[in-house]
């Protein structure tokens, strides 16, 4: 079993805001992240797949194709966007990095070929804050 990772990046705006709470409670829990006019991040995304290298190609999966899948199903939808307002797959979800990583996994999983599994979605919100999701 070999792990292969593709690194991508995108820049997006978001805010953390629970619509069932008052503004005061949101500010208490989320602090500056609840700013009504959003704030933003340079996100760094690492998508790791696992599998056995093909006998002919030596590839688990052509990394150019993996990059294209990430671009089509994630980056084109989120890059230079407002995650709360513009992104269909984040609609009605709290826009935390945790939820975002899970949602990215769900965007990619259906499009991987047989024999190739997603191992991990690792998402840096800032250089000092990142999450990992392993599909469970």
């Amino acid at each position, binding site marked *: 079993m070999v792990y292969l990772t593709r690194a991508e990046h995108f820049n997006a*705006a978001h805010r953390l805001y629970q619509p069932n709470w008052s503004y005061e409670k949101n500010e208490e829990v989320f602090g500056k*992240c609840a700013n009504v006019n959003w*704030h933003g991040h340079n996100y760094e995304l690492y998508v790791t797949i696992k599998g056995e290298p093909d006998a002919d190609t030596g590839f688990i999966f052509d990394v150019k194709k993996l990059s294209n899948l990430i671009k089509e199903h994630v980056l084109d939808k989120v890059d230079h966007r407002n995650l709360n307002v513009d992104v269909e797959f984040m609609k009605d979800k709290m826009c935390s990095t945790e939820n975002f990583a899970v949602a990215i996994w769900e965007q990619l999983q259906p499009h991987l070929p047989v024999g190739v599994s997603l191992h991990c979605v690792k998402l840096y919100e800032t250089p000092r804050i990142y999450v990992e999701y392993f599909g469970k």
Partner: protein
Amino acid sequence: MGKRVSVFRKEHFNAAHRLYNAAWDDAKNEKFFGKCALPNYHGHNYELEVKVTGKPDKRTGYVMDMKNLSDLIRNEVTSRFDHKNLNLDTEEFKDLNPTAENIVIVIYKLLRPHIDKKLDLHIRLYETPRNFVEYPAN
């Protein structure tokens, strides 16, 4: 003559913005600024490097007390821009397009009055890990 030394402080702030010239229509803005003109904003983790240059003080050995510099940056820059929307939430970018170039000049102007005139000030601002600007340009 004395030896001149540069001291650096790194800070960061996370902000939303969009690039837009109000005198142009949407089509022209999109043509010129591309995705950066999208109407619902996008964002960046800005990384800021503030460089102060001068001769170390004979009594303290400091060019500038780095704690004072850190407090100054926090009070004048981070408090204004961190977790804000530069276009909507700040006085500085009310009528000024918040390009990295304009942001770095604004940051310089915010800090310069509070730093001893004998000391040189230079700012480097990373909009992304791959795009950064400096002011004054050498």
